């Protein structure tokens, strides 16, 4: 395959960036999108140019490090995959592919395609945990039976990999899907109910402080989410938030 890549290049957070054009040849369908970028970078290095920097690590769709806005879509045209699992067979010979970083006020660009997603860490630090000591002096695991349906739903919410595609997909750059997934995981478990009120209030407050936008229910986040995190989580968080506010 022969392709034309238009890639966002930006030296650092303090400089302006721009799209630069790179023709590339010899791309095979079996390559992952990131392997295609590896080929590009090897060529750039050999020519004496600076390679394109992008976040990536596990390359098996689970660490959440890879990002990339590909032709306007977070993680590109395929569904339920991260960029590292997107394969070049999704593209055709002669295509032009525009590659940009995830765009959001709360995700400033660090360099080229790398953005700072530490806002997500801070939302979790605000309450995304159960306050249990790790001493091991807890009760036997099977003394807390949990309805399989709730346990499975909690698991589904917990499959969020924190990549930020939901924010990048949203016209308001809202982090509601991410935050609600974490709130839901705990809200659905008896262990997590104990601190549910404070948790939702603190996490939402932090989310707002980070400069994420409001949710206007367009549902773009759910469509682009590589893990298929459901909008139901947002509805659940809204319920939790409302009842917590009334209690508070």
């Amino acid at each position, binding site marked *: 395959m022969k392709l034309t890549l238009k890639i966002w290049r930006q030296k650092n957070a303090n400089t302006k960036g721009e799209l630069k054009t790179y023709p590339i040849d010899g791309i095979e369908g079996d390559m992952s999108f990131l392997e295609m970028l590896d080929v590009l970078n090897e060529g750039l290095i050999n020519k004496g140019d600076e390679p394109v*920097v992008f976040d990536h*690590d*596990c*390359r098996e769709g*689970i660490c959440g490090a890879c990002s990339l806005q590909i032709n306007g879509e977070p993680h590109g045209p*395929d569904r339920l995959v991260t960029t590292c699992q997107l394969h070049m067979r999704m593209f055709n010979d002669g295509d032009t592919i525009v590659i940009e970083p995830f765009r959001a006020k709360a995700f400033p660009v660090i*360099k080229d395609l790398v953005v700072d997603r530490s806002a997500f860490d801070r939302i979790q630090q605000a309450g995304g945990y159960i*306050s249990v000591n790790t001493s091991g002096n807890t009760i036997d695991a*099977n003394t807390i039976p949990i309805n399989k349906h709730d*346990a499975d739903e909690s698991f589904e919410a917990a499959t969020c990999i924190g990549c930020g595609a939901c924010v990048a997909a949203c016209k308001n750059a809202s982090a509601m899907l991410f935050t609600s997934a974490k709130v839901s995981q705990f809200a659905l478990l008896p262990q997590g109910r104990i601190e549910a009120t404070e948790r939702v209030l603190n996490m939402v407050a932090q989310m707002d402080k980070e400069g994420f936008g409001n949710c206007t229910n367009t549902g773009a986040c759910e469509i682009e989410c590589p893990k298929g995190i459901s909008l139901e989580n947002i509805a659940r968080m809204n319920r939790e938030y409302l009842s917590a506010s009334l209690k508070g």
Partner: protein
Amino acid sequence: MSKLDSKIPKGPLADKWTNHKNEINLVNPANKRNIDVIMVGTGLAGGSAAATLAELGYNVKTFCYQDSPRRAHSIAAQGGINAAKNYQGDGDSNYRLFYDTVKGGDYRSREGNVYRLAEVSANIIDQCVAQGVPFAREYGGYLDNRSFGGVLVSRTFYAKGQTGQQLLLGAYSAMNRQINRGKITPYNRHEMLDLVIVDGKARGIIARDLVTGKIERHSAHAVVIASGGYGNAFFLSTNAMGSNATAAWKIHKRGAYFANPCYTQIHPTCIPVSGEHQSKLTLMSESLRNDGRIWVPKKKEDAIAIREGKKKAIDLSAEERDYYLERRYPSFGNLVPRDVASRAAKERCDAGFGVNKTGQAVFLDFATAIERYGKEQAAMHGNHNPSKEEVTKLGKEVIENKYGNLFQMYEKIVDENPYESPMMIYPAVHYTMGGIWVDYNLQSTIPGCYVTGEANFSDHGANRLGASALMQGLADGYFVLPYTIGDYLASDIKTGKIPTDSKEFDEAENKVREQLDMLINNKGTHSVDHFHKKLGHIMWNKCGMARNAKDLESAMTEIRALREEFWRDVKVPGEMNEMNAELEKAMRVADFLELGELFAKDALHRNESCGGHFREEYQTEEGEALRDDENFMYVAAWEYTGDPGKEVLHKEELEYENIEVKSRSYK
């Protein structure tokens, strides 16, 4: 030759850990506030230890190269975590988990450590459930279990195919709680580049901020390395792209002995290599072997026809298939340990029965399981005479529920539907049992420098059983290190802050700067990846699943030559004082190029086959690994003396008092 003191407590096996905990020194809560600990790595071992130490009152600084602790590669562990809970009532016990692990490791691990691991395993599950880890459950609301290789009980707890992710998020949430309290200061996108030793004790690290390129000094009263394994020395592995041995290798060069580097796990069920562009290999969880049957064609002409695309797997009848694991190992069948399964796949492929284009693949087939589950489901729904289509449909639903995400991953990568035709798999480098030598307290040969998780060597011997890595990481982090490190830190309550303006910090920082400068200014002709791939080829071809003296000798020579070429000719674009991914890689590959040579040297010296270390010269008539207990029942701990090819060997003899050492059989 010095004698390594493993500091295994005296007394009966089952009492050792309890007695030890009763005897070691404690630090009172007020004094803990005056003590700093550095944690390098935030996966299961590092994240859990950081959270626990902070909770106890120590001031913890965590370092990870990722942008968030949550992305450490523990996250990619799929299948599960072992614990001797005996929830299934199938005869499990601490002793049995201990026994399975020692046998699985081919009698090359320490009894005391492994028993402790088994002893605390049940507690891990309690802890994780309390933290909100959403493990799989049965309809009655209780925890579900499945079975893994090398054992005859079901003791594996799991969260679909994402157990590592859920456990790591649990440890990360415990960390977050402490970050929120100000007890952990996280340094993300930071890489440790050297250890600082003051008066013989580990007192700090030199780290590079990967965003600004700034070199930083951090001091502490103790340094814990939890930075994972060195599988990426092979270039292609199931490790993350950034997984590296740098922290471990740097402490090795500062005096920590490196144990059993040649013990590497080649995992049998990975997606085969598709081409030269391949950047990493993807694991298909061992849990699939609960339901998948592994086979190749019985007749070579069928294998050739499949390779050429003239026949398909489903064209072959049951009689035309060789379920070679079931044939060779009737009692464990498809659930033999990983080293055994990998070698058996290699044997069939080398003999010409491999099935994909390259001939380097075997089938992992779910058709039998789909049929079995389908019939069961139909009966449960009152349909006692279901059609074939009904059975297949119901059976596929069960398989999807159990392994859906793995099947989806396979389909995305290979572009074939594994519900319709069997998966093709081949072994790949996955885990390193070898690592920094530590005593029972997880302390390396450098006082104050502790090593946990995959980065140490301690619990898995020559082969790790499935679902035991998560167990060890969390056992070390939640329940072992927080006790044992207190024993050491008790003498530091009056030390006060460790200053970073000492000559030791100057020396370490200058050394790091020198190395970085050299790489940036080298202006050679080849990229870092060029050298890394070459190293990977040598490692895979000569230090891989089957090794022999001649190849290992030439591997040592070739790696040495490649290392020299690297330093002469590597090209690292960009600058030091900025985000520079190539420079990060260069530093890591420089270390792999040293470690690789020691790896080969260790494999060459070990004139026996055991676990993941298979020397072609030492095998039984049936092709099984042949140990030499008389001469090699020891841990090989290597001391760096300035040249990885000339390291000095120290031996820790292994003693088995509670288990009968015999030849390992899964037949």
